[in-house]
């Protein structure tokens, strides 16, 4: 429980490193996550260069070896999901936004909140250390399937593998602690008058995501402990030769891994809703339908996991069940996309940078969803499994979720976070550069996949069918587009820093939005509100007939 007026003059360390203020913790997560995102980007740069130009010495990295390639892919995937998407989308925006948007002064457990960040930081440090130990980082893919992951003889990284696993486990602990805080805060500290259906959608989404995470991660933590035992003290939970079963790991992993996609998807969907309603001046179409569709998606996400194992030798009777549940989940998700489009219909749309990113999210994410329909059918998946078609499919969901979602959030809340406006023109340059190059990375990968290019292969010259000029041209197109995309991120960082230093000063409510965070000063002081707000209505009352203003803040008494 925090008391806002007790902390006045604090030392730099107390204020920025060991702060219990949810806003500072949110920023710490944001910057750590973005830094890790850059690492993930660097790793993908190294191995995409190897794929397009096999054997060259990659500038800034060196020659990519066979086992080095495995470590690069593994850590790219793990870093992007666990150390970039999750910390930024859930922890950073969740910490920053939840107390502000529900109108209270801090999280219910501020010190637990700080502990969560510290454990997360520790996990990131251990992960980075694992790159530099004997034989380098772990190379058994982010899914860590045994037996490859279980024995140093197979994965050749006697230190890298356990360190990787410990880092992942610590990261889970950090997010469990953080999630508990989010859930209790939403349930107990809402502003006076804020009813369930007055809660802004992004807050709902982050909290539901935390619940999904809580409910799914248990089996994996248990599984990871068993894997660690297999690695270090010679147990045989997953060793078929000694009576264990590697399929057990796959079940434990994907029971977590599939809901995990929704854990990162929901916060982004929430941010997109906030931005879309504000920049089209429209009420969210079907608030309750949206909310219940998400609940339904959440529950369903727990009963689809085995679609990742159609060709792993699972009982074929189960493949039928899981095909049906997988296709079923596209119903609520499609519904949510329609609700977003219906919200735009007839609105007075203003194409500022955050809005561009929000719109791009829907467009690109639909491509990811539609290509998932093919993979969800067990028959088709037998052909497509582990090809670059799959890689392209899940990046058409993950890049919109993680990268587009991050930029939607940052461009929208930057004025609140730092009290300065960002340059819109630079934002638009960054937007178009990122979106166009992103599509040119992954569209070629669909065709490579259909041509039979299997993933996790280090040098396609070894396979006559894949060693053709046409296929290498596609690979080069993807890699060059990646370089373009990375280059355009420099525009973003320039804009970010320039705006911090000499951006125009931001008013409290630059976008004329309704939610409570915009009613606090920019940036909000410790304790957030001079006086805790009282809520009179839902968050999306734009363009209400008979009022002279086109917006109606939640805390304005009529």
């Amino acid at each position, binding site marked *: 429980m925090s008391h806002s007026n007790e902390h006045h003059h604090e030392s730099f360390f107390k204020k920025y490193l060991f702060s219990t203020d949810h806003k500072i913790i949110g920023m710490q997560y944001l910057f750590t996550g973005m830094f890790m995102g850059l690492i993930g980007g660097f790793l993908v740069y190294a191995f995409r260069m190897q794929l397009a130009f096999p054997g060259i010495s990659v500038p800034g990295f060196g020659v990519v070896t066979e086992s080095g390639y495995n470590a690069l892919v593994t850590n790219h995937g793990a870093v992007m999901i666990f150390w970039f998407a999750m910390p930024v989308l859930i922890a950073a925006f969740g910490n920053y936004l939840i107390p502000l948007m529900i109108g209270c002064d801090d999280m219910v457990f501020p010190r637990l909140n700080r502990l969560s960040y510290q454990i997360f930081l520790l996990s990131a440090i251990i992960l980075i250390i694992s790159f530099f130990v004997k034989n380098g980082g772990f190379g058994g893919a982010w899914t860590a399937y045994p037996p490859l992951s279980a024995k140093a003889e197979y994965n050749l990284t006697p230190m890298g593998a356990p360190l990787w696993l410990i880092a992942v486990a610590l990261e889970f602990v950090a997010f469990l602690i953080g999630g508990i805080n989010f859930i209790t805060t939403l349930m107990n500290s809402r502003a006076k008058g804020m009813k369930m259906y007055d809660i802004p959608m992004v807050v709902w989404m982050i909290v539901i995501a935390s619940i999904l995470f809580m409910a799914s991660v248990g089996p994996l933590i248990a599984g990871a402990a068993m894997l660690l035992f297999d690695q270090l003290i010679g147990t045989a939970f997953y060793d078929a030769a*000694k*009576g264990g079963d590697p399929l057990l790991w796959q079940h434990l992993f994907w029971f977590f891994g599939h809901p995990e996609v929704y854990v990162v998807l929901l916060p982004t969907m929430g941010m997109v809703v906030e931005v879309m309603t504000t920049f089209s001046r429209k009420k969210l179409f079907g608030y309750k339908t949206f909310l219940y569709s998400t609940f339904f998606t959440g529950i369903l996400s727990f009963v689809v996991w085995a679609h990742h194992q159609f060709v792993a030798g699972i009982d074929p009777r*189960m493949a039928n069940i899981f095909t049906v549940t997988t296709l079923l989940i596209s119903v609520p998700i499609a519904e949510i996309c329609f609700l977003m489009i219906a919200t735009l219909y007839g609105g007075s749309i203003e194409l500022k940078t955050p809005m561009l990113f929000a719109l791009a999210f829907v467009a690109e994410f639909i491509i990811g969803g539609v290509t998932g329909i093919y993979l969800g059918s067990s028959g088709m998946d037998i052909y497509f499994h582990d090809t670059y078609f799959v890689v392209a499919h899940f990046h058409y969901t993950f890049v919109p979720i993680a990268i587009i979602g991050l930029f939607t959030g940052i461009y929208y809340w930057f004025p609140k976070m730092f009290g300065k406006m960002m340059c819109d023109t630079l934002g638009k340059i960054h937007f178009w550069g990122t979106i166009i190059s992103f599509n040119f990375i992954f569209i070629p990968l669909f065709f490579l996949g259909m041509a039979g290019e299997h993933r996790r292969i280090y040098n396609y010259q070894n396979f006559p069918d894949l060693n053709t000029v046409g296929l290498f041209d596609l690979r080069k197109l993807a890699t060059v587009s990646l370089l373009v995309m990375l280059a355009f991120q420099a525009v973003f960082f320039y804009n970010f820093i320039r705006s911090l230093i000499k951006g125009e000063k931001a008013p409290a409510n630059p976008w004329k939005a309704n939610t409570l965070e915009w009613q606090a000063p920019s940036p909000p002081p410790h304790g957030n509100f001079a006086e*805790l707000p009282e809520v009179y209505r839902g968050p999306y009352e734009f363009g209400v007939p008979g009022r002279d203003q086109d917006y109606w803040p939640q805390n304005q008494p009529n």
Partner: protein
Amino acid sequence: MSNNHASENHTAEHHEHPNYKKVYITLLVLLAISVLGPMIGIKALTLITAFGIAIVKAYMVAANFMHLKFEKKYINYFILTCLALMIFFFFAIAPDIMKWEGRNWKGIRPEISHESINGHGHH
């Protein structure tokens, strides 16, 4: 927490504290029973004393020591949902995992009949 909630919560938070000593002693008695149960040597009784009592003890710890008894209603729904998911999970992976009689923890290699695999034996 913000002040405006303090008055509302006042009555709710002053629930009766559980009698920790009584719960503790009950737990000890149950523990003794579950240790003595197997000594009688009846298989069905052992199952009841071991697993049945474990469930009762887990409930008592969660309800009293972890204060779940005094939580809001939705905690129960949450626990029930998790339980349902766990049961679904168990039965969905059982056909893959439980192929051999449960000796896996001993690390003994399962005896695979070569006749059933190759379709012919050697006599």
